[in-house]
């Protein structure tokens, strides 16, 4: 069999992949398995089109979008139940309603976090005009604005939130995860999780490694999850070089990242709820419709 590269963004779900690769548990799937980071959607698009990306961690709605476009991509599992937080200086913000009149940096306009954020606002009875949403810039700029007090809060993903909090500490300021989006989500929708990201595989890989290989992959990841949650410090040290993030940041992020390794079919209801919510804002984000059965690789 060919060597296999697992691709993931420099975000929390990739920790599990890095751990799985390092532990050697993927020997059964392919003789030579490595982990690499993708950073831009263009890279991912190019990789999937060119066939070099065969197993890649992507946001679940992206997997649905690609699947619905007929690109031969299916979701294997869900790797996180949500890692979105509103970060604000300690004690300033308690809940969504507390954001009223404040300036919040949301660096993902018209993307999933933005839709979830708007949904949260709506559920708290806040109109768009009640708070000052600053969409400008990338997460890096959002944190810079937050740390210098030019924004009152920022809507961030892990491990960015942890990094920001750690960075603020060295500057003598205290930030906290003021609002856990997962909790709010639970209240609004009644669903337990925001199945944000998962491992997607191409049909070509599925054909190459077969059903047994897929199962072995899932098992290896489940095992890796166990060791990550048991010993975050070691896992962080393992993942740090590949993610190009300092180990302490990763270690701090692990407990807040709701890491899971759930089969896609097992998370189907949560996924459907999330996709519905997104499609309400813009159906095109999931590729126009709920993905059908073929979407769930396992």
């Amino acid at each position, binding site marked *: 069999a060919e060597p296999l590269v697992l691709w993931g963004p420099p975000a929390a779900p990739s920790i599990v992949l890095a751990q799985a690769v390092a532990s050697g548990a993927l020997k059964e799937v392919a003789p030579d398995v490595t982990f690499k980071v993708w950073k831009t959607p263009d890279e991912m698009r190019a990789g999937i089109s060119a066939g070099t990306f065969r197993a890649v961690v992507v946001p679940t709605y992206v997997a649905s979008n690609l699947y619905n476009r007929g690109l031969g991509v299916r979701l294997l599992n869900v790797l996180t139940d949500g890692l979105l937080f509103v970060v604000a200086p300690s004690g300033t913000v308690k809940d969504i309603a507390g954001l009223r009149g404040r300036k919040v940096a949301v660096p993902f*306009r018209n993307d999933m976090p933005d839709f979830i954020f708007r949904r949260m606002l709506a559920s708290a009875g806040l109109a768009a005009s009640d708070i000052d949403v*600053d969409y400008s810039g990338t997460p890096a700029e959002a944190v810079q604005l937050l740390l210098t007090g030019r924004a009152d809060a920022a809507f961030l993903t892990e491990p960015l939130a942890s990094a920001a909090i750690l960075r603020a500490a060295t500057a003598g300021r205290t930030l906290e995860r003021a609002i856990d989006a997962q909790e709010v989500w639970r209240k609004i929708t009644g669903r337990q999780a925001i199945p944000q990201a998962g491992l997607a595989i191409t049909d070509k890989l599925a054909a190459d490694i077969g059903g047994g290989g897929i199962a072995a992959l899932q098992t290896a990841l489940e095992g890796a999850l166990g060791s990550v949650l048991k010993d975050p410090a070691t896992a962080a040290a393992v993942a740090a070089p590949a993610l190009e993030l300092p180990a302490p940041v990763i270690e701090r992020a692990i407990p807040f990242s709701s890491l899971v390794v759930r089969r896609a079919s097992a998370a189907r209801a949560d996924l459907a709820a999330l996709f519905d919510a997104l499609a309400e804002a813009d159906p095109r984000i999931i590729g126009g419709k709920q993905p059908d059965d073929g979407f769930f690789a396992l």
Partner: protein
Amino acid sequence: MTVSSPFEGPRVGEARRAMPAWLRAGARACVAATVWLGRYVWAGWVGLAGLFCLAAGWQAGHEFYGSFILPAPLETVTVLFGLFEGPELAQAASETAWRSLGGFLLAAGLGTLAGSVAGYSFAAMRIMRPIVTVILGVPPIAWIVLALIWFGSGGGSAVLTVVLASFPISFAGALEGAATRDRALDAMARSFGASLPTRFRTVTLPHLLSYLFPAWTTTAGNAWKVTVMAELLSNTGGIGGQLATARALFDIPLVTAWILLVVAFALITEYGMLNPLREMTERWRSAGLPWGVKR
């Protein structure tokens, strides 16, 4: 300059004599404009040939890579026409247009001004050139936060990006043009007691224009692109914002349609605005060429 038009038979001449002078002049100007426009558009055919070559390459790329990487030209154009029906296009386009126009005017204006000053004065040149190199060499991420702080999520940061990216081009052109002015002609103008501004206008400027036009055309073409990229990266609306959304949706034909629009704007700026201006001011250059100046 007199216009000799092919429609000007002796009869017409007689009929004209009966018209009042302003009407005659107006008619004459009309004919001149029509003739000029005809010639301009005619010359455009060759340019279109070049563009269609590009389109053919695009189609070939599409056939090889498929719609997810490179949508077909026809598909893209269809999507683009679809856009014309919605309200986003007008809004996004006008937002981007104002930003790139503002950026272009500021960049071209400041660059030309500073470059001309530096071209006249060696001391100014020595001080300014390294500064301009630094401005040119600093990647936008260095000051994008500052721009966001100063201008918020309005268009200011996009305009600033355009200015900083394009200003050095006009500066370098104007500097070189002013430095290579013909000093013999300058002395001639001085002998008639022409003041520095007059000399600049009548002696240096016409020479300078040949340095400014390449700088301006690159600046103008660039301005659209840079504005869109800045909007995209700083999430500040306009066509760049639309592009970002389309990208988040992986709607590649839509992405390509927006890009096609940007390119169309760049072409319009160059061939609708800058090129006619150049043709007007640089007509004298075709004097002495075998086909001469069309009078």
